[in-house]
């Protein structure tokens, strides 16, 4: 049986979301949840993997509640997770502007922006909690931007018509993360959190059908150890680094979620990836990552390419009538402000036509000449100065004089481990929060919503729902390293590490990662087709086979060894990539970040097929390279009725 001959298993019918009016469901769930007596909480150990916005806030909050938290991050400090790089802001339905915003409107915008592929109950809860997040962060001392009267400032973001985005200059993610890190630090000092930095989760321990611990490697000594708990929380982020080049941090990886998937957790909507339109283009083969620039630039910059193919004249020598402001031409009412997926695809199309600019023709101009003429250089500087500086530092070009060059890049993954309303995966006792789960953004995430979801999950949702799980499972048998299941997982992990070191081939971990990334970008990137995806699905097992024959990892396993860390992550990318392609192949509709070339309207727009695909695709692992089993969770829309998006 080939990988594409997947079976369809039983549908997912119980999401644990309560019934009743959508705005009462979260209250109802919290009331129905069993509680753990405060005196008993310290007897429960919870493992949290990751210290980004979701993990940091969850670890701190669970410890405040009295649980014993054992937390891990691969970085040298819990202050560095990639949430720190988020620039734009965080949405909240505070309606401080009196501009008609409400919880319901944020709920509506998020379901619609996700192209009707998210669960209404979850999204509504997210919108409700958004207001509490801002209160919490302000109390922690997060220095949000303020007006002269001392009240919080907001801005509008990502094409919505209200001003609900709270921000701290272009460093909102950093400030929110430091707030969570400081709360976590307080709990570490109090002895409630046992923190293991520079320690990477390599596998999940499931005993008697429940998540009971993890296997992790101390990245300094190389020692592989087991850790046990009553519940495990994965807050390990997304999997954008499958593409090699992305805006993710270099060491962000998919190992924790992929290993959990291999142990029985369903993986939902893996093909839903977000490609951000305003990134700095690559300059050559040495490129190690891509840098995003806030999409607020599209408010004043005009995007264009030359009308003629292969026009190599410098931009100022191309006269006005030989320029194609293609977004303004194709989408006259939204112009340069069309949603992320549409702007990205349009850029790809003009570059594929041979009209791209810059090295390799992989770029389009984002021109501020008109804005400077209209507003004056000073005003442009005040609004975008820090972004212009960043651009100049990286490219050595002055965007006040020469148009910026931008190109889309992989930025966020909406897919992730399938979770129910309680954020619990299909393995009892295993929870997934933040970007690691699939829950709230459907097929496309709106700007300034990632920070909101990470903190909602970590500060408010998980601490309420995990109570219920622990209260219902109060006396689990203790697990020790001698347990046969633990011995088996430990042996598998050690074998994998030893094998990576033993092959002693002639290719580096990076060379395989780059090859896989290029394949994924071409066939499972901005536009996907049946033929392309089949090509990728044929090629991935070949790369995997070659990997295990030719990989070269110097050094030993008993030391600080960054090549070994990298190689082990690439092992998992080589499996996850296959599932992403299969998911993209099976979903023969276009929706959100997933564009199938076969499914478009006569004028080239994405065509969603609600009759066939109004479900979340949750995949069950069988064996490496073997067809997984598809479980469908039907999506029901009671409040926001699906419509085809139109931006013309």
């Amino acid at each position, binding site marked *: 049986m080939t990988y594409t001959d997947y079976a369809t298993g039983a549908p997912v019918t119980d999401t644990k979301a309560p019934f009743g009016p959508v705005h009462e469901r979260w209250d109802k769930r919290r009331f129905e949840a069993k509680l753990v007596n405060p005196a008993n909480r310290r007897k429960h150990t919870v493992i949290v993997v990751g210290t980004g916005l979701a993990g940091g806030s969850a670890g701190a909050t669970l410890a405040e509640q009295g649980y014993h938290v054992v937390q891990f991050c691969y970085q040298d400090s819990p*202050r560095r997770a990639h949430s720190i790089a988020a620039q734009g802001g965080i949405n909240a339905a505070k309606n401080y502007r009196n501009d008609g915003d409400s919880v319901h409107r944020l709920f509506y915008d998020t379901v619609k922006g996700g192209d009707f592929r998210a669960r209404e109950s979850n999204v509504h809860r997210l919108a409700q909690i958004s207001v*509490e997040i801002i209160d919490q962060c302000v*109390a922690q*001392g997060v220095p949000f931007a303020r007006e002269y*009267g001392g009240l919080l400032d907001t801005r509008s973001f990502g094409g919505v018509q209200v001003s609900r985005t709270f921000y701290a200059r272009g460093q909102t993610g950093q400030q929110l993360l430091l707030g969570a890190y400081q*709360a976590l630090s*307080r709990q570490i000092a109090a002895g409630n959190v046992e923190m293991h930095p520079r320690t990477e989760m390599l596998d999940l321990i499931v005993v008697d059908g429940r998540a009971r611990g993890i296997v992790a490697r101390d990245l300094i000594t190389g020692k592989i150890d087991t850790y046990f708990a009553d519940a495990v929380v994965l807050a390990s982020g997304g999997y954008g680094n499958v593409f090699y080049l992305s805006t993710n941090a270099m060491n962000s990886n998919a190992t924790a979620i992929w290993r959990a998937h291999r142990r029985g957790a369903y993986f939902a909507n893996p093909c839903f990836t977000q490609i951000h339109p305003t990134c700095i283009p690559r*300059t050559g083969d040495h490129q190690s990552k891509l840098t995003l620039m806030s999409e607020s630039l599209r408010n004043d910059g005009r995007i264009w390419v030359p009308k003629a193919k292969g026009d190599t004249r410098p931009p100022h020598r191309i006269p006005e009538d030989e320029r194609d402001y293609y977004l303004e031409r194709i989408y006259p009412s939204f112009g340069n402000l069309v949603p992320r997926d549409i702007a990205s695809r349009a850029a790809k199309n003009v570059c594929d036509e041979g009209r791209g600019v810059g090295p390799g023709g992989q770029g389009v101009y984002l021109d501020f000449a008109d804005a400077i003429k209209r507003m004056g250089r000073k005003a442009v500087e005040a609004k975008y100065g820090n972004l212009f500086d960043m651009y100049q530092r990286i490219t050595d070009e002055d965007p006040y004089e020469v148009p910026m060059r931008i190109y889309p890049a992989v930025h966020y993954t909406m897919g992730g481990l399938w979770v129910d309303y309680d954020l619990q995966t299909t393995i009892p006792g295993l929870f997934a929060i933040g970007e690691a789960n699939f829950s709230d953004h459907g097929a496309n995430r709106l700007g300034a919503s990632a920070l909101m979801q990470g903190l909602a999950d970590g500060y408010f949702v998980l601490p309420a729902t995990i109570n219920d799980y622990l209260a219902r499972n109060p006396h689990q048998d203790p697990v020790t390293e001698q347990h046969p299941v633990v011995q088996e997982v430990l042996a598998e992990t050690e074998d994998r590490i030893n094998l990576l070191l033993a092959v002693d081939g002639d290719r580096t971990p990076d060379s395989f990662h780059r090859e896989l990334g290029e394949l994924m970008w071409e066939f499972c990137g901005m536009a996907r087709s049946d033929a392309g995806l089949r090509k990728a699905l044929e090629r991935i097992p070949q790369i995997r086979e070659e990997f295990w024959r030719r990989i070269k990892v110097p050094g030993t396993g008993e030391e600080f060894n960054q*090549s070994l860390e990298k190689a082990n992550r690439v092992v998992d990318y080589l499996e996850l990539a296959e599932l992403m392609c299969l998911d993209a192949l099976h979903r023969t509709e276009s929706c959100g970040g997933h564009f199938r070339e076969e499914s478009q309207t006569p004028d080239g727009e994405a065509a969603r097929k609600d009759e066939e695909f109004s479900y979340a695709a949750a995949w069950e692992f069988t064996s490496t390279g073997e067809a997984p089993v598809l479980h469908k969770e039907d999506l029901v829309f009671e409040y926001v009725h699906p419509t085809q998006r139109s931006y013309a």
Partner: protein
Amino acid sequence: MKLTLRVWRQKNAGAEGAMSTYEVDDISPDMSFLEMLDVLNEQLILSGEEPVAFDHDCREGICGACSLVINGDAHGPERTTTCQLHMRSFKDGDTIDIEPWRASAFPVIKDLVVDRSAFDRIIQAGGYITAPTGAAPEAHATPVPKADADFAFEHAECIGCGACVAACPNGAAMLFTSAKVNHLNVLPQGAPERESRVLDMVAQMDAEGFGGCTLTGECATACPKGIPLMSITSMNKEWLRATRKAGKR
């Protein structure tokens, strides 16, 4: 570009270290400094040598992981993080010295990687506001004057990279500590713990073995985020105030 690199190699914390010399060729001026090191490492792996270990993650100047002393300067010749330094700042044929942060409170783990956990312990000593989840009042209940909010932000920008310590001839951590003290102490939310925060954080800083401050100002010159030298003065004022207040009690 063709370059000669002299790189600090040290097997582990207990081993003796030494500078090793390597040649790299075909370096593009558009590469970042870390991408240049990637090229060196690919070369080393293929020739069967161990690659040079260095800390890095976001590669966009915000996570604070990267930490190299380049030709004697923390983060190199430009005022930015190592990951945002580009090879156009160097010339074809240059010899470049690359070393780890050097400070007794930051022991070397391997090659260019150091242990900065002392910074985490300074934050744990008081670099937070006690506000358990759920206990927060409505965000607009306490307005914060814009000037205070901006002052807090300016200090909150610290990325905890440790360049200030690496640049200081005394290996002092005053700029790092003062950045957090000032961020939180100026805010009304931080007022209840204002005294204990500065006293506890400074005590922890001293306990970690960081050197004393002699106001040479190298820290603020090296800081990629522009935390001002005045930050130290402000913290000293906070510390004096807290000490006197504690004496009166």
